[in-house]
């Protein structure tokens, strides 16, 4: 290939940094004693931060397609790069609370990095084959991560995740094959030109298959069944990872598919996506209503959140407001969702809502941050998700989907109900002072005080940070949006 100069390689600098972090971390981990594995964590974090910085520097540059148009570097990719890199960095620290001293600690961090890389690949792919590669890269490391604890619940979760992933992977491949058959090319740019004239039957099969693939990674209805089981089966930090990082990439991938190759096809793809969005938010909310397990509750809440994200996917080709809306919502969702899972990780022994409320008992600030995060997920102002939701509603309505906005508004109210089921016991127990002190003390024995203290430190920091960042992103959206999305 002649045209591959330095510049085009450097366009992928953020991804390369992540890759270096992964490989370097693996090598470093091999030569590092068990109790010094924090070095790997540090290296991985530095790689993530460097990648985020590189992505931020590249953000204002005009959109380009590198490597023969397979890799798109534009605003969407840039935002996904930053969010994923920062998200992985935070999640590595969140996971370190439970992974510290684990015999396969390094491997976990490396797999998390690789999964993040896969997520970025999904978001950036401008070619169907790269989409498939990104799908695999964003899936395979996660299978291992889901069952990392090797307990029965984790293994079951992994099994379910893997089988479902393999099945949908086949659907994705069939879809890609159908599209190649219909248009004779895999590049989005060419597909956008050729697909409108292709045979509708092939198109339908192709679009359904490809959308099934990204919907699976995003955890949208009807391929969401793995979400609650995997989330509840794995550890809270891994659950946060699995419900945040790949979703971001998958939603961005779906957005790009709708905006480019599927924009001109004779089928009403936006309507299909709108129906998926409506079904996701509705079913996710309804299923969350009666959950008493905090992880399952959050799992269904992520399903409903994907519904809101798919609203903006549906209007990707129809309105100029879609790109900023997607960027804001993705960033807000990542921050808030990680915060909510960090709240669970802060009391790892507590599985049900009442257990959680009892466990955090006297820590008033934990409850305050939890309330900020959960109300943030509802979309209460002035959090980041509120700004995102507002932008998404405006974009969806502008794209001619006013009915979907009404459904989303109704669903928002419904979602409030189950978040309040968690908030209310936690908030009212804050002041119930002395009775809970005993319960908190009962959690202590077994581990020495030192480790017990250390165990919960990172999740607490992450939770508070998420709450603060969520508020700052919301209140200061004027400041950061003018930087990220100069219009």
């Amino acid at each position, binding site marked *: 290939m002649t045209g591959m100069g330095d510049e085009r390689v450097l366009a992928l600098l953020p991804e390369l940094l992540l890759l270096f972090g992964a490989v370097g971390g693996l090598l470093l981990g091999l030569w590092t004693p068990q109790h010094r594995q924090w070095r790997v964590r540090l290296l991985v974090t530095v790689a993530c931060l460097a990648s985020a910085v590189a992505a931020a520097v590249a953000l204002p540059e005009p959109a380009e397609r590198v490597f023969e148009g397979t890799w798109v570097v534009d605003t969407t990719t840039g935002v996904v790069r930053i969010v994923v890199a920062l998200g992985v960095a935070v999640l590595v620290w969140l996971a370190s609370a439970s992974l510290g001293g684990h015999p396969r600690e390094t491997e976990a961090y490396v797999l998390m990095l690789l999964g993040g890389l896969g997520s970025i690949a999904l978001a950036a792919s401008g070619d169907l084959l790269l989409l498939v590669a990104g799908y695999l890269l964003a899936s395979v490391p996660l299978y291992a991560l889901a069952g990392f604890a090797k307990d029965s619940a984790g293994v079951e979760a992994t099994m379910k995740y893997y089988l479902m992933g393999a099945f949908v992977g086949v659907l994705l491949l069939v879809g890609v094959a159908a599209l190649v058959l219909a248009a004779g090319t895999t590049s989005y740019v060419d597909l956008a030109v050729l697909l409108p004239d292709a045979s509708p039957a092939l198109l339908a099969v192709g679009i359904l298959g490809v959308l099934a693939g990204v919907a699976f990674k995003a955890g949208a209805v009807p391929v969401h069944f793995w979400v609650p089981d995997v989330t509840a089966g794995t550890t809270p930090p891994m659950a946060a990872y699995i419900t945040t990082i790949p979703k971001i990439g998958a939603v961005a991938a779906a957005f790009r598919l709708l905006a480019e190759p599927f924009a001109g096809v004779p089928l009403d793809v936006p309507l299909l996506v709108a129906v998926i969005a409506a079904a996701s938010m509705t079913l996710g909310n309804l299923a969350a209503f009666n959950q008493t397990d905090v992880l399952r509750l959050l799992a269904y809440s992520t399903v409903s959140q994907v519904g809101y994200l798919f609203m903006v996917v549906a209007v990707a080709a129809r309105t100029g*407001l879609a790109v*900023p*809306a997607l960027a*804001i919502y993705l960033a807000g969702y990542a921050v808030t969702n990680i915060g909510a899972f960090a709240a669970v990780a802060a009391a790892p022994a507590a599985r049900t809502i009442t257990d959680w409320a009892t466990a955090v008992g006297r820590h008033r600030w934990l409850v*305050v941050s939890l309330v900020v995060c959960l*109300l943030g997920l509802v979309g*209460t*102002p*002035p959090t980041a998700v*509120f*700004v995102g939701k*507002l*932008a998404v*509603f*405006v974009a969806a*309505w*502008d794209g001619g989907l*006013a009915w979907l*906005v*009404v459904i989303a*508004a*109704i669903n*928002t*109210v419904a979602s*409030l*109900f189950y978040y*309040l089921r968690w908030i*209310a016991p936690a*908030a*009212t127990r*804050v*002041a119930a002072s002395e009775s809970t002190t005993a319960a908190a003390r009962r959690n202590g024995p077994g581990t020495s005080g030192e480790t017990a203290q250390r165990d919960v430190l990172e999740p607490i920091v992450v939770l508070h940070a998420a709450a603060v960042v969520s508020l700052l992103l919301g209140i200061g*959206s*004027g400041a950061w*949006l*003018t930087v990220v*999305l100069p*219009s």
Partner: protein
Amino acid sequence: MLLTVVIFLPLLAAGVLLAVPRIPSRAAIGVWIAASAVDLALIGWMWWRFEPGEGAAGVVDGLAYEADLQWIPTVDAGYHVGVDGLSLPLLALTGVLFLACGIYSLREPDRPRIYAALFLFLQTACLGTFASLDLILFFVFFDLSIVGMYFVIAGWGHGNARRSALKFFLYTFIGSLALLVGFIGLFLGSEERTFDMVALAANPPLADSPVAGGLVLLAIGLGLAVKTPLFPFHTWLPDAHTDAPAAGSAVLAGILLKLGTYGFVRIAMPILPEAWQRWAMVAVVVGVISVLWGAFVALAQTDVKRMIAYTSVNHMGYVLLGLGAAGLVASADEGARTVATVGAMYQMVSHGLLTGALFLLSGVLWSRGHTYAFDRWGGLARPAPVFAACLAVAAFGSLGLPGFSGFIAEFQVFTGALQAAPVATVIAVLGILVTAGLFLLALQRLLTGDTVVPSETEPDEMGGGPVPGRTDGGAVTATLPRKASRMADLRGHEMASIIPLLALALILGLFPRVLLDVLEPAAMAVAELVGR
């Protein structure tokens, strides 16, 4: 800048309260009172310096203390606040009522630090809603007021507080999301694609598409009607009030309900004038139904607080009657429509003061006997003369006796609405009659006759009526140590909170010009804008 300080000063005080862990109980409430007092002083200064102006009346021009910052650039939403004749009286009402609630809560025994912080947070939310000139900013503060009130009811309520709080949150949240949908409709319908109220009112969106305009008005009207609350969306109100703490009820009825009616004046009428004219009759009818429904259902209540809650539905009905009449451009001249608008605005302030006082007084009942049931109380005039006097004054003020602010308000509403909607107005006057009856009945039950005071430990079902044996309660006191055998009269801090509210209602009833000077130009501007 001054306005921003006024809005966020309470929030700052709340932050201080939360951040400093070892504040003694009384000092925490002291911080609340101090912050509210400073805030009220600043609002007073703003009022004093406020010039209504000749040509510039408000709503679209003549806004004082304006601040305009960009907030969400992608959808052109900003931090745009300002004061005009519509918002200034309500800002002042907010300042007064929160200060009164602070003084009333001086001896709050239950987690006073967080309680005070929550109320200060609520104050910021309420002030922000009244001051905002941007739809999204309005929505933000509107929503935050719901969140704050939810925690007040859930955390400090009594009875079935958690359930009532949930009902309140879900119900009003539905309303606020309907509001958001309507706002987005305004944004997309406007030419310049903005959420700025001033720009939208100056150049109304959706003027040439009656169907879209009507639907957007429906969404906004629904959202505001839930909050106001108007029949048939009022069902959350009695539960929330009954189970909320007294100060929470006072703020809920005095301020939070006004967020709804204020939204009609500030958003629905000037921004959607054409749709408002078209559907004004619906507002009138809903207003009249609310008047009658609230009055008759209040008449049937056996619980003091529920009764006051339903009279709020009744009073908010008058507000909507006035605002609806202001939209009936074809059948009334501008003078009448202005009078109706002024009356509706006056009613908002008047209701805030009087109902605030009534709810604080009902809180006194709860603190003495832990029940609001009519049949557990009686003959309170003898043991508690000051309480009885205050209750009587508040009740007479609330039923619209001349000399009190409520009379000025209702009189203007009826005068203004008579020309436009004579039948509706005449029916609504009946509501006054029923209200008068129910307040007199309530006074009779509570204040006259043999003294009946509940004892805490008696089960509720025993209270079938004034049992003679309970009148002095002495026999039971011997066995039950914490039982109230006699009704203690108002304490100092209770008097200091309730009496100023009643005095203000009296002043506004005797010297209405104080308020009218500020209100009238703005009301005229609204009537003019609706008439476009």
